[in-house]
């Protein structure tokens, strides 16, 4: 079974600064997807960024980028130029490849509560 570990229950960052959230996972699969989801106080789960395990290049989405280290099973999220609207819970999630039929749900870490301070 896959497990996802987020070792930072809470973090804070000054507005406009950069912060990195850590995530490690354990799997025997070779092909899989990794995701970061954001959950603001509205409760809506919002996809931030995704990474295919077979791609060596780290994914980037505007101010969000990841550092994917497959051998180390590490998948950290870097938020640059932090904004007040980035305040939220951030969840790292794992999905096995070959699940396009939807047979396998996401496996989530426990989350990191990020506070952006003005």
């Amino acid at each position, binding site marked *: 079974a896959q497990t996802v570990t987020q070792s930072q229950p809470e973090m804070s960052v000054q507005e406009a600064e950069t912060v990195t959230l850590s995530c490690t996972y354990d799997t025997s699969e070779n092909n899989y*997807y990794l*995701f970061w*989801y954001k959950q603001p106080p*509205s*409760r*809506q*789960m919002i*996809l931030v960024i*995704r990474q*295919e395990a077979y791609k060596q290049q780290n994914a980037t989405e505007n101010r969000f980028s990841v550092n994917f280290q497959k051998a180390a099973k590490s998948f950290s999220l870097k938020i640059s130029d932090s904004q007040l609207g980035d305040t939220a819970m951030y*969840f790292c999630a794992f*999905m096995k*490849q070959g*699940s*396009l*039929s*939807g*047979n396998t*749900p*996401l496996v*989530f*870490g*426990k*989350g990191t509560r990020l506070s952006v301070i003005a």
Partner: protein
Amino acid sequence: SAVISQKPSRDICQRGTSLTIQCQVDSQVTMMFWYRQQPGQSLTLIATANQGSEATYESGFVIDKFPISRPNLTFSTLTVSNMSPEDSSIYLCSVAPARADYGYTFGSGTRLTVV
């Protein structure tokens, strides 16, 4: 990606009663997933709902407590039965995307408080 309408958004219920949560998807999907998120915690999978068959429940969740219906490819309900204060949580439904690299889509969640 799919859009999910989840209702109700919140409710306060008396212990011993039941609440049914609905999720309507704007496209046909094979699987729907139901999660529970206890206060300050991560998402825990309750069950996987496939149209036309019994839902598959995760360890610690039983059909008598969390009956699920999946009458068609765009709709599902989760009932929380015989509620106790320990059932106070956020409940979310989710669907898999047409392409894995799109990420799963979630409903907006139902905040349930049992008093």
